[in-house]
C-alpha cells in the first residue's frame, strides 16, 4: 500500500501536461497485455490446426497435433492474468453467475468456456480416444491410469467407432473455426467498444486483433515445431515448414494492411484526439511501436518471408531463419498488445497530458509474474506432449472423411 502510493507520487512528478487526478494510476497493467496476447496465441494455433483438418491441407499434418495441444495449453492459462489482476479475485465467478448483458466483458466467461470445453477439449478428445485406448494397453502405472481416465474407460476401437470419432471431431472443428474467430474478435471488441478512448475505439479493432492473433499463433506453432524436432532429433519436414511460412506471410500481409489502414484513417480524418495521439506515438510509444512492433515484428518478417516466395536458401539456413522470424513475430505481437493496452492509458482523456508506466519486477503486477504466466503454458504443453505425443499416434487421414 505504502509502496503503491510512493510509486504514484513518482508518476505524479513525471506527469507531462495535465491528466485528470484519477488517471495518474494506470489501471490495466502488463497482465492485461498478456490476456489478449495469450488468447491470440490460442486462436491462431487453433486456426492453423483447422487448416489441416477442414481445408485438407495435408502437408501441414506434422503440426496438427502440436498446434492443437499448444492451443489447449495456452487456453488453460488465458484467464489467469485476468483473474489475478482483479481487485477482488475471489468474486471472479460473478461474471459467470450474474453476467451483465450490455457488457462485452461479461460474455467472456461463456465464450471462453465454449471454446475451451466444447471446441478444444472435445476435438482433442475425439482425436486421441483410440490412441489412448491402445496406449492404455501398452503402458503401466500412472500413464496407464491417465489414459484409462482420459478415455473415460472406453475400449471400443472398432473401425466403426473410430470413424464416428473422426466424424464428430470434424464437426467440432467446423464449429471451432468461427468460434476461434469469435473468441479473438470478441477480445478486440472489449477494447474497440470503449468510445471514451480514441486509441482503442475503432471498428477495425476486432479484425486487427483477429489477424494479429493468427499471425502470433502460427508463428508460435512454427517455432515449437522447429525446436521440438531438434529436441527429438527428427528431420524437419521442410515442405510443411515452408507451407506454414507461406500462410504466415499471407496473413501477415493482411494484418499489416489492416493496421496500416487504421493509422492512415486516423491521420487522414485527424479528429480531436489526433494531436494527443500523434505526440504519444512519437513519444512514449516510439520504440515499442515503430522499432519493435513495426520493424522487427512486421516489416522484417514480411520482407524475409516475401523473399522466400521467390528465392529459397538451403534448408539448414531456412530453418534457422524461420526460427528467428517466429521469435521476432512473437515479440512483435506482444508489443502490439502492449501498444494497444498500455498505450491507450498513457494519454489523458482530456487530451492535455500524459502519465507514465514502469513495470516493476516483483509483486502481482510485476514482470516476474507476467513471465510466470508465459512459462506455465509451456510446462503444460511439455506435459501434454509427454502424455499425448502426436507423433506416436496412428496415422489417420482426416481427408478420408468426406463422402
Amino acid at each position, binding site marked *: 500500500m505504502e509502496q503503491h502510493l510512493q510509486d504514484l507520487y513518482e508518476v505524479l512528478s513525471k506527469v507531462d501536461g495535465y491528466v485528470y487526478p484519477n488517471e495518474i494510476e494506470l489501471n490495466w497493467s502488463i497482465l492485461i497485455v498478456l490476456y489478449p496476447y495469450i488468447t491470440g496465441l490460442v486462436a491462431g494455433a487453433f486456426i492453423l490446426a483447422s487448416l489441416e483438418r477442414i481445408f485438407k491441407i495435408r502437408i501441414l499434418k506434422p503440426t496438427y497435433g502440436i498446434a492443437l495441444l499448444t492451443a489447449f495449453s495456452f487456453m488453460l492459462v488465458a484467464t489467469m492474468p485476468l483473474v489475478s489482476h482483479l481487485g477482488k479475485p475471489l468474486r471472479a465467478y460473478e461474471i459467470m453467475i450474474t453476467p451483465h448483458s450490455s457488457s462485452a466483458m461479461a460474455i467472456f466467461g461463456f465464450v471462453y468456456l465454449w471454446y475451451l470445453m466444447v471446441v478444444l477439449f472435445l476435438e482433442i478428445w475425439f482425436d486421441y480416444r483410440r490412441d489412448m485406448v491402445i496406449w492404455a494397453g501398452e503402458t503401466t502405472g500412472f500413464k496407464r491410469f491417465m489414459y484409462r481416465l482420459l478415455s473415460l474407460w472406453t475400449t471400443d476401437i472398432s473401425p466403426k467407432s473410430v470413424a464416428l470419432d473422426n466424424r464428430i471431431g470434424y464437426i467440432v472443428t467446423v464449429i471451432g473455426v468461427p468460434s476461434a474467430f469469435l473468441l479473438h474478435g470478441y477480445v478486440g471488441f472489449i477494447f474497440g467498444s470503449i468510445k471514451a478512448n480514441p486509441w482503442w475505439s475503432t471498428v477495425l479493432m476486432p479484425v486487427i486483433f483477429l489477424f494479429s492473433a493468427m499471425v502470433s499463433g502460427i508463428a508460435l506453432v512454427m517455432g515449437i515445431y522447429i525446436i521440438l524436432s531438434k529436441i527429438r532429433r527428427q528431420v524437419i519436414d521442410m515442405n510443411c515448414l515452408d507451407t506454414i511460412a507461406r500462410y504466415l506471410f499471407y496473413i501477415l500481409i493482411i494484418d499489416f494492411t489492416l493496421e496500416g489502414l487504421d493509422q492512415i484513417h486516423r491521420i487522414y480524418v485527424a479528429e480531436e484526439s489526433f494531436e494527443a495521439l500523434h505526440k504519444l506515438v512519437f513519444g512514449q510509444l516510439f520504440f515499442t511501436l515503430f522499432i519493435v512492433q513495426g520493424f522487427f515484428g512486421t516489416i522484417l518478417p514480411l520482407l524475409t518471408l516475401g523473399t522466400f516466395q521467390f528465392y529459397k536458401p538451403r534448408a539448414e539456413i531456412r530453418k534457422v531463419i524461420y526460427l528467428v522470424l517466429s521469435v521476432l513475430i512473437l515479440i512483435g505481437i506482444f508489443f502490439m498488445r502492449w501498444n494497444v493496452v498500455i498505450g491507450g492509458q498513457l494519454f489523458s482523456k482530456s487530451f492535455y*497530458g500524459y502519465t507514465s508506466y514502469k513495470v516493476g519486477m516483483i509483486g502481482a503486477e510485476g514482470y516476474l509474474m507476467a513471465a510466470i504466466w508465459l512459462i506455465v503454458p509451456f510446462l503444460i504443453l511439455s506435459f501434454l506432449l509427454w502424455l499425448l505425443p502426436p507423433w506416436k499416434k496412428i496415422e489417420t487421414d482426416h481427408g478420408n472423411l468426406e463422402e
Partner: protein
Amino acid sequence: MKKEKTKLSRRDFFSAGTALAGGVAITSVLAGYDGLLFAAVTPNAKGIWYGIGIDINKCIGCGKCANACKLENNVPQAPFYFRSWVEQYTIKNDGSIVVESPNGGIDGFKQSVPDKDIFKSFFVPKMCNHCAKSPCTQVCPVGATFETEEGIVLVDEKYCIGCRYCVQACPYGCRYIHPDKGTVDKCTLCFHRLKKGLKPACFEICPTKARIFGDLNDPGSEINYFLKNHNCMVIKPNLNTGSKLFYNALNPEVR
C-alpha cells in the same frame, strides 16, 4: 407454366408457416436481449430525475467542494483519488492552454502563467456526470454499477470485482479504484444525504452557489430555471453519454 406458379401445395403451406412461426419465435427471444441497445435507447424517466448545473462564471476556485467531498465520503486523502475536483484553465495569449489541478484544488490555486501572458482564466469543477446512458454502467461485467430510478449512477461495492473496465470506459475520469477496498469508487451525489432531504456536500459548501441540482422532470425546479436562463453545455457531447451535468459558460477548450 403460369398455373404451376400460383399453385400452393399443402407442403409449401406448412413449410412457409413453420418458417414464419420460427421467425417470430426467434425474434421474440432476441427482443429480450437488449444489451446491444444500451446506448442506443434514450431512457424515458418518470418521477424524480436528477440533473446538475455548474455555473463556471460563479466558481472562484476555493476548492471547498473537493475537500468537503473527501471528508463526507471518506475518500482517500492522497492526490490520486477524487470524486470531485476543480481544474484551473488558463488560455494564453498565444492560444496555448494550461490546465492545472494541484491536489484537486483542495489547497487552492496559484497561477503559474505570468499575468501578461494570460488571455483568460477560469475554474471548472468536475464530478461524475451521472450520465443517462452511462458508459461505465454499460461495460460493468457483473452489473455492480447501476443507474437508480432517479438517474444517479451508483456502485455496489459488495458486488464489484475490481476489473477496472468502468474506469476505462468513463470519458470524464471520474472513477478510481479504492486502494484499501480493491473496488471502484465514485461520486454518489451524496445519495445518503439526498435520502435525508439534505444537499450533497459539495453543493452545501459552495460559497458562491455555483452548483445547482434538482429534478429535471419538475418544470419549476431550480435546475430547470438554471437551464432555461443560461446557455448550458455538457462536456464531450459528441460521445452521447446522456450526461446530466450542465455547465454554464463552458468554453470549448474544456475536456
